[in-house]
């Protein structure tokens, strides 16, 4: 899932300082699962803002709503009659949701309440570990299901580097060496051949925003128009 971290309260206060009527918009999908921007976290932020602004003698009227998803047009429609009643909206969704909300309501300031941190697994309640950088060229089939782009500090495709140290990375003894893990897993599976082939360098220059259209979902009539 996409994970995010709540921004420091001072930063949120600064973003909202000139607005008198604010809608806190949560997202009920990824950021709700990672306990950053779901219904409960929206309630906490709304309570904090209410208290902080009252104490600063600059009271604010706060509304709150948690949409099913902010990255889907159909769920944003729920705000259609609501957005006009507020000076600004502060979104607790990931960067994708915040941008889509801003796109749907271009005349309204849409501000972020969270910092999006990546794609992570759920290790425990409230504990998430990054596993994917969404580079767009998955090597997992050759690397025993361990991503060198994410797990290696240098993102090496043909590792390890000289800094590998008895299973740890040179940056820290607590950081496992991705290429050591890859070697051990492939060895156990008898698949060491998989890393003997050279993997070409990533085309990192290709950094324009990516669009995905699933096969069978192209709409030729739209292309003509």
């Amino acid at each position, binding site marked *: 899932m996409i994970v995010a971290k709540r921004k420091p309260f001072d930063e949120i206060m600064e973003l909202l300082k000139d607005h008198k009527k604010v809608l806190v918009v949560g997202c009920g999908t990824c950021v709700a699962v990672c306990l950053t921007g779901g219904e*409960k976290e929206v309630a906490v932020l709304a*309570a904090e803002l209410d*208290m902080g602004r009252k104490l600063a003698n600059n009271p604010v009227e706060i509304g709150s709503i948690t949409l099913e998803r902010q990255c889907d047009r159909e769920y944003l429609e729920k705000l259609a009659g609501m957005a006009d009643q507020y000076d600004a909206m502060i979104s607790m969704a990931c960067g994708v949701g915040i941008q889509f909300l801003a796109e749907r309501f271009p005349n309204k300031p849409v501000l972020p309440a969270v910092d999006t941190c990546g794609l992570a697994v759920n290790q425990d309640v409230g504990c998430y570990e990054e596993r994917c950088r969404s580079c767009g060229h998955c090597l997992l089939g050759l690397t025993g299901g361990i991503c060198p782009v994410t797990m290696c500090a240098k993102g090496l495709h043909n590792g390890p580097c000289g800094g590998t140290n008895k299973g740890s990375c040179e940056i820290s003894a607590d950081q496992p060496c991705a290429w050591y893990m890859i070697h051990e897993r492939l060895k156990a599976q008898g698949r060491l051949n998989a890393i003997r082939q050279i993997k070409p360098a990533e085309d990192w220059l290709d950094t324009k925003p990516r669009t995905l259209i699933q096969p069978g979902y192209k709409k030729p009539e739209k292309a003509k128009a």
Partner: protein
Amino acid sequence: MRLSYPSNIRIILVPCTGKVDVIHMLRAIQKGADGVYCVGCLEGSCHFNQGNIRCRERVEHVRSLLKEVGLEPDRVRMYNLSSSEAPTFAAYATEMTEAIKKLGPNPLKNKALGKP
């Protein structure tokens, strides 16, 4: 035992302090309560194993939130005792009340009631 403790405390019963959430404590302060304290079982003797430890963690979080907002973190506290320790319960109630009296009323109280 007929022990007495300060009468300005309102007791809210929960099945375990592990049930107490951040938003419960925060809302109480937001609505004008001068202080909130959670009284859990002794650490290590939770019937549900970790309820009181979870509560302590949430109390700590609320304290940090209050600090960010501009209120005294000491308005929210965690206490632990065994259910048979009535004198300790009364002592904690007195200690909390005195601590809150030193801090003075919640500055949000009048604002929460819509007064200037």
